[in-house]
């Protein structure tokens, strides 16, 4: 292992303490919808000025890792991703919790996050400079196709209801284009309103579309929020470990997917989770159980989103191009510390870089005990707290969390209104997930498309631009596979005499 001599430097008591407190703080912050890893790291920057650069880096890395994991709690227990990275965790995590398996889901998320985190950190340690090339090889057109690949999940999320799913996605894509356009700077779809100029903030929409409907349904009936099927059974760690072992290849693949998507500066944890989920579902033996509380779904997304932490640091440290928004904050803090990123960082400032990477390992390992303990506590609280306290607490959390994203009161109103729209649509068969997919992928798809089109038209190679680049073709192949695999499979089943489950 490169830089192994720096392992000991990472393992000083003070660093261990910093990593531990970072993971705890990050986990708590990540679990609160609206509080993002970016914000947590940004608040910390001034403290790090008076710290040794490596200690500062370790602490920021630990907070970041913890926050990405913490997002799973609210995704599983409240159907609300605490961070955008945990969107796909809601697909199976919340159904599991409803069935009374919330504790198992949280332990699974913890194991997956640690696995993903370790895989991501290992790639960062071993292969950072060559892997950074991926960040550059991905051009506008590749981002466009990647977004399209993400959208193919709609067919999975709205089985038997594809038209509704597609309409929902279009709705989300239109919502994404409200406000001042990110690249063309035009004002779109505000219909004269000042409030909409800033567009619909993604996290705001996530909280509204996912959490408000849960609240609306919670107050309507005296039923418990989550079913309790058993007496508390500890962490259910071995059971979860067994499940993880059974899907070890899927787990590893999701971690690798997460790392690679993390390297892409324009993508991020939410897309990593969605792509990994989509792939896990396609290849799983239990594919029909996905979306209904399938443990493998939770494992796939949670390993992928934590792998983006290590992955995101690759372009940040090697190229000086931040992989994710928290990376951008950390990059700023590094510059203030007088550390200039670049290919030579790994040789010239080897001690800082390698100590940091080992610190990341340390934080990831600490996440296992920390995550299990906090997770169990969170589960117990949500399950036992009376409805009359749960509803107002969650509601208040959504309000203050939404406000904190951009310090905006209008965002809170947008959040509630979107929640009502989401609830109403859901009642008539339009589930919120396609809308969210449209919202998240819309901006990436549009930018990629417009840029690719402009470049392609300028160089006179429009066709080649969209269909003639190797990486694009690979993604395109996966898109076709995702769309047509179910058809092929059911046809295959029919010919072999088995009963196919065609709609």
């Amino acid at each position: 292992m490169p830089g192994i001599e720096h392992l000991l430097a990472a393992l000083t008591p003070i660093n261990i303490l910093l990593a531990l407190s970072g993971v705890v703080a990050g986990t708590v912050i990540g679990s609160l919808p609206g509080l993002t890893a970016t914000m947590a790291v940004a608040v910390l920057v001034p403290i790090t000025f008076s710290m040794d650069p490596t200690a500062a880096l370790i602490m920021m890395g630990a907070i970041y890792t913890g926050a990405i994991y913490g997002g799973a709690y609210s995704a599983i227990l409240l159907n609300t991703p605490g961070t955008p990275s945990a969107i796909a965790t809601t697909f199976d995590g919340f159904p599991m919790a409803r069935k009374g398996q919330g504790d198992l889901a949280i332990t699974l998320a913890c194991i997956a996050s640690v696995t993903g985190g370790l895989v991501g950190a290992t790639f960062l340690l071993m292969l950072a400079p060559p892997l950074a090339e991926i960040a550059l090889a991905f051009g506008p057109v590749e981002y466009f196709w990647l977004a399209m690949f993400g959208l193919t999940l709609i067919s999975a999320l709205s089985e038997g209801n594809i038209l509704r799913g597609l309409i929902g996605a279009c709705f989300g894509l239109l919502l994404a284009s409200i406000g001042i356009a990110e690249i063309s700077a035009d004002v779109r779809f505000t219909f004269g309103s000042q409030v909409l100029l800033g567009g619909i903030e993604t996290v705001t929409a996530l909280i509204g579309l996912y959490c408000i409907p849960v609240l609306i349904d919670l107050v309507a009936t005296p039923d418990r929020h989550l079913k309790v099927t058993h007496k508390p059974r500890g962490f259910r760690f071995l059971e979860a470990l067994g499940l993880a072992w059974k899907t070890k290849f899927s787990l590893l693949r999701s971690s690798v997917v997460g790392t690679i998507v993390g390297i892409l500066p324009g993508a991020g944890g939410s897309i990593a989770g969605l792509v990994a989920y989509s792939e896990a579902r396609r290849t799983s033996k239990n594919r029909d159980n996905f979306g209904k509380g399938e443990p493998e779904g939770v494992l796939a997304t949670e390993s992928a989103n934590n792998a983006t932490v290590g992955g995101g640091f690759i372009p940040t440290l090697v190229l000086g191009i931040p992989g994710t928004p928290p990376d951008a904050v950390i990059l700023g803090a590094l510059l203030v510390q007088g550390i200039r990123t670049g290919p030579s960082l790994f040789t010239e400032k080897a001690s800082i870089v390698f100590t940091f990477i080992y610190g990341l390992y340390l934080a990831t390992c600490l996440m296992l005990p920390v995550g299990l303990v906090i997770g169990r506590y969170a589960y117990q609280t949500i399950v036992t707290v009376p409805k009359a306290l749960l509803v107002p607490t969650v509601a208040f959390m959504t309000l203050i969390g939404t406000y904190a994203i951009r310090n905006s009161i209008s965002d809170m109103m947008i959040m509630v209104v979107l929640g009502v729209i989401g609830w109403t649509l859901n009642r008539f068969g339009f589930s919120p997930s396609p809308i969210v997919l449209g919202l998240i992928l819309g901006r990436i798809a549009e930018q990629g498309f417009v840029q690719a089109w402009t470049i392609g038209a300028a160089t006179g190679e429009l066709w080649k631009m969209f269909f003639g680049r190797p990486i694009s073709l690979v993604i395109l192949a996966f898109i076709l596979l995702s769309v047509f695999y179910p058809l092929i499979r059911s046809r295959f089943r029919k010919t072999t005499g088995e009963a196919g489950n065609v709609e």
Partner: protein
Amino acid sequence: MKNTLLVVTAMVLVSIVSVGGSLVLADDFPSQNINYVIPFGPGGESDITARHQQAFFKKMYGHDMIISYKPGGGGAVGWAQLNKMKGDGYNIMGINLPHIILQPAEKDVGFTTEDITGVYMFHYTPDAIVVAKDSEFKTLEDLVAYAKENPAKVTFSGSGKGTSNHLAQLRFDKMAGIKTTYVAFKGTGAAVAALLGNQVAAEWGYTSVGASQAESVRMLAVAMDKRHPKFPDVPTFKELGYDLVSGAFRGIAVPKSTPEEIRVKVSDIIGKINADPEFRALLENDGMALLDVDYKGYPAFIAEQSKVMLEAAREANIIK
């Protein structure tokens, strides 16, 4: 003497009234942490400069500058809300030119240039044409010659539309009599990634790109009056016969309700940080060019820049 005293008393009274109850004494300003809002996401030039200022502020005044991000609409979301913040000097916001001039001129973005009370402009990043190290374009003339033969074929990445990069591209095309294609990206980081990945032939970027990516890029020319001290080998457009001096200017604004005296204080603080030799060295090393326009000089500066930028934008058909 007596008059001055009267004026000061009146000012203090006015300031007390205008901030309503919460007693602000200019004498001990700053006596608490300052909220510094960046109307962009993290990682851009505005953010990195703010981080440098944060460290020096802490050193000089013992308080923190708390940086928060309020991205959206190329900064417009933040600026539209600037005057709704509390005007006590403890709330300040980063401002950028040409954004605050061109955005309201193009359409209704919720604020006008006059709505923004700038107190200091502290630096600017000159525009520059950047190519990858292995590019076939060794000089600006190579690029212009190629572009003349192949109209619209040369693609430039750049940060956003209606920005300094975009304006520079349009103006340069006109000056050189060429036609190139501008591809807008979301921020400098994405534009640089597109350049390094050979998605585009060149980038309309800033001198700061030349500094942060020194190992992998080459600048063909910078849009400055004189050569940048960090890049003595890179010619200016002027030297090469194009009268192009442009860039993105950055500064600090306060809400309109901020009392006069506090505005001056904030201006002094930023000025003091800007005067620190260590700070200057850091920023120059990052490829920025320092600027010292204080509260008094701001109106004249903005008037002059407005004239230049609006004219350029009109010529380039960005605004009517």
